[in-house]
């Protein structure tokens, strides 16, 4: 079995607590992540993503492969950042994998993040195992992106669950109302 080589991976880490930011940066670097850019809150992260897109030399990084962001930050929190990435016309990459870190573990909160198009959810308090696992899941199990009138983000159905009743989903890949885009 081969080893992952994260050397070419560029992660944008958004966390307002200097202590946790430093901890996560250290851990990612030890895991071998080659590029870790850090920002204090969502607003700075948005500015940085725009800069990476418009002037990568000045930003010091050619592209961002993944965002790992805290949820509860001020003045711009992780949900606003996620919304901007997924929905704003100025977003340079609406498909960017996004791991939300949060001490909010209530079902409704997780659901709220899913509805906004989060890729993965890392619950605090975290361990090295949980951080590594989220990295691996993001890499190994990316979901197709779904764009409907009310949602844009990774497919919220991660696993295929056998359902004993009638399948009431109206549209399938073959429906004329569905377009499959490959890239």
């Amino acid at each position, binding site marked *: 079995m081969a080893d992952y080589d994260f050397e070419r991976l560029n992660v944008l880490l958004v966390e307002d*607590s200097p202590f946790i930011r430093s901890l996560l940066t*250290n851990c990612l670097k*030890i895991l071998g992540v080659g590029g870790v850019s850090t920002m204090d809150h969502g607003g700075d992260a948005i500015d940085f993503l725009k800069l990476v897109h418009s002037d990568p030399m000045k930003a010091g990084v050619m592209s961002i492969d993944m965002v790992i962001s805290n949820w509860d930050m001020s003045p711009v929190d992780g949900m606003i950042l996620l919304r901007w990435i997924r929905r704003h016309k100025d977003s340079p990459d609406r498909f960017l994998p996004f791991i939300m870190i949060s001490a909010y573990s209530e079902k409704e909160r997780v659901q709220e993040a899913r509805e906004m198009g989060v890729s993965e959810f890392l619950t*605090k*308090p975290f361990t090295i195992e949980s951080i590594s696992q989220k990295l*691996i899941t993001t890499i190994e199990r990316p979901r197709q*992106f779904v764009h409907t009138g009310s949602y844009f983000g990774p497919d919220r159905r991660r696993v295929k669950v056998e359902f004993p009743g009638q399948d009431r989903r109206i549209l399938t890949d073959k429906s004329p*109302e569905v377009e499959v885009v490959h890239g």
Partner: protein
Amino acid sequence: MADKKNIKVRLYRFKNRLREKTAGLSGGEAKIPADVLAQAQAALADMAEDYPDWVSGLIDQLAEQHRRCVDSPDTRRVHFEEINHIAHDMKGQGGTFGYPLITAFADSLYGFSYSKGVLTDNHVELIKAHIDSMRAVITNRVKGDGGEIGTELTKGLNQAIEKHKIS
């Protein structure tokens, strides 16, 4: 080909470039080497040693907000919001650094500091009880469940909660 005007759903299926970038083109299984995971774990343990000093600073901030609640009942709501914010941060961190009691007490404080109703003196006393309990955990370096001391601290906090019960 589908009529673009009638499209209701678009499904985007991309090549997994992130995997190509990190695990190569071979397609076989990949892993993070055990020694690398062990190094990261050791780094986390190292940082955990600084955690009590850092969290003491947060407890001081909580104490300052509590003092303001006592001194200025008119602005209690603002201070409760700040306390709620600090408690939220703390509940996410204690467990990572070997202090699950900080996470438990901060979680309780997070619940009690979120109130849309009138903020009474009992509310303020409850905040104080949580701050005292967290201070005791850090001063005595009560790691894990804390054994007997941990049980006593939890019991003490629960008694204070019962005493200042908010109806």
